[in-house]
């Protein structure tokens, strides 16, 4: 169902096949418009996280992939991860334990914002937007799960990503928190016009995302 006249903006996964040794793990051909969410569902072992790591640019060398990843019509497949500028969120917030909350955000903040004071102000403002006023000096280890998830989101957004890749980022949050963070992430992505690729095994995530859903079938024997 490859259609060369598809919209040029957004994230396109074109004719991607990922193989593990001789066996085909998955095939996908899809695109996500800016602000939309593409949900890829599948049980564990279906290769959904592998797909995400291929798109992000760090596919484990045991896998073998064909196809290409395009953003706004530009092929990024040969670019290393750091030049793709795809924001990444995992099920663990993965805040750097050796840095403060503010240190984590300053590390993520795009280098385009210059000057110590200006950068600090950007970080403080971003924290305020997610109800974390005064958290800049805190040790990430002292935060609650929901607070950590919000800091991780802010860290990603401050790096000015061009798309978001989410690897079950809500699965470790408790139910009430899950809803809140999920809404926050999708809201922010929509506001910035970021295409989002979400891999999950939770049907609630897919429903909340509201966009196209692709089910990966289990790998062929």
């Amino acid at each position: 169902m490859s259609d060369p006249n598809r919209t040029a903006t957004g994230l396109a996964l074109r004719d991607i096949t990922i193989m593990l040794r001789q066996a085909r793990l998955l095939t996908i051909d899809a695109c996500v418009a800016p602000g939309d969410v593409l949900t890829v569902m599948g049980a564990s072992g279906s290769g959904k996280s592998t797909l995400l790591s291929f798109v992000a640019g760090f596919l484990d060398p045991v896998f073998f992939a064909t196809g290409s990843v395009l953003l706004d019509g530009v092929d990024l497949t040969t670019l290393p991860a750091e030049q793709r500028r795809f924001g990444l969120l995992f099920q663990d917030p993965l805040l750097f334990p050796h840095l403060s909350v503010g240190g984590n955000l300053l590390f993520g903040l795009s280098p385009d914002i210059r000057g110590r004071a200006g950068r600090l102000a950007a970080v403080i403002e971003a924290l305020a937007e997610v109800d974390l006023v005064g958290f800049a000096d805190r040790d990430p280890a002292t935060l609650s799960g929901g607070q950590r998830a919000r800091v991780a989101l802010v860290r990603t957004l401050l790096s000015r990503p061009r798309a978001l890749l989410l690897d079950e980022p809500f699965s470790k949050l408790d139910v009430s928190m899950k809803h809140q963070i999920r809404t926050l992430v999708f809201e922010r992505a929509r506001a910035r016009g970021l295409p989002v690729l979400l891999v999950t095994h939770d049907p609630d995530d897919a429903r909340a995302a509201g966009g196209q859903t692709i089910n990966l079938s289990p790998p062929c024997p």
Partner: protein
Amino acid sequence: MARVLAPVPNRPGSPLLILLPVLAFALLIGPVVAGLLGAVLPALGFLPTLGGTSLSLAAFEELSTEPGLWWSCWLSLSIGLVTTMISFLIVMVFVAGWQGTRAFGFVERLVSPMLSVPHAAAAFGLAFLIAPSGALMRLVSPHLTGLTRPPDLLIVNDLWGVSMMAGLVIKEIPFLMLVTLAALPQARSRELSRVTAGLGYGRLAGFTHAVMPLLYRQIRLPVLAVLAYATSVVDVAMILGPTTPAPLAVRVLQWQSDPDLHRRFVAAAGAVLQLGVTAFALLIWLTGERVMARLCRIAAPSGHRYVRDRTGRIAGAGAMILSVAIIVAGLVVLAAWSAAGLWRFPDAAPLSFSLANWARALPSLVAPLINALAIAAAASGFAVILALGALEYEARAGKTPTIRALVVLFLPLLVPQIAFLFGLEIVFARLALTGTLAAIVVVHLVFVFPYVLLSLGDPWRSWDRRYGHVTHALGKSDNTVFWRVRLPMLTRPVLTAAAVGFAVSIGLYLPTLLVGAGRWPTITTEAVALAAGADRRLIGVTAFIQAILPFAGFALALAIPAVMFRNRAQMRPQG
């Protein structure tokens, strides 16, 4: 539409990085090969600087006429095998009988401090305990023995090397314990032991049948390294070993330092013979491995549960605790002698304590202390840089360590020190490097690097790679990942590895002596040199300083991250 193979992303990496693993391999292989050549050629009569230009077996003929040569070989062989066997058995029985218990956790915490005590200090401590006029005899005299004078017994330096074996066993147990602890999770020891317990097997039998086959494969190289070390150790032999004749390695050193330069040919032949003795010991051990594996396979189908293993378990724990107690008590006695005033036999304690011994000893120990610290700091520093480089190269290139690389890593620990250091000294002499600080640091690095890499490898590799993915996704380069994320997050294991390297370097005797040509005395060479004398107070001061230096290194390795990350809960141990 034709499928296009998605090309691998181009990483703008630094091509210079590959130099570090290359350098590390060169460091592990180069000196050993050069050193062995430097021993084999003179052994065959080729040493132009001393007039040897033709090949002959004259050196071996002369060697064979040395009195007591075969007894020396027998001592090296028997001490090596017995020491390794006993230490290995104690560690295995203890682990099998007690893993998962509180006693096990207690011993687990003591392993690293015990390991950091240098061999020479532990050997002196043991000598001070068991000598006829030692602490143990004083404790039971005169009440139990009726003795008012030390008995005329040859306990230390006994003919068969029993006290030397004891001194080696107490030091090899912590080493084998540490490598075993590191291998237990991979051997799935806990789970498998539960399974065998569920099938009704006694702890020792279950462990032997289910865990040992996997575990032994993991700890095999370290066990062989212990065997190679014990067959050729010099410093412990000079303190505790037999003297008439001494084990082979000690005699090679004596021939090497003989004022008659012609004796160097005999020394070279002796070094080659030592290589043969160690190789023979390894061969016996490898044969023993096969026999044991065979016996286990024969015994397993019988289904005997061996439930009554209480005696064995208690013996294992007793031996383990005894070995720790000997090291600790030895250090206490060393400290007591270092501060002792008048201390007559059979008094259990000195009549008075004073700092006079320290005041007398310290002026001559300042230079050796500074040398030791400088060499150890340089060697451990370089070793950490090399190890980080090799590990980072491995991570970026997506490689996993191979068995072959592991064997290379253990190479300097599997070849007897005396066999290749002797030849290396000759090579260095040719290059006019003998006696230079650079040469000493390089040779220390050969022995320090494997331990540093072994210590750092596991924590470095088990770092959660997703932190790297997240950092890349934030638009950062490989170098930023390394310097600003991975290295800071792993500060603690990096410093611990540096402290391990520091401790190894402080304890090195033979490399410092041979390559330093006596120009760089360290606290360790000074301590061992005192073995021949009888000044217990001076030995007490020197050996005690030697023992506490590694502790100081480990204390720093704990304190620095504790201060650096005092407000970071997750950076604390087990955080």
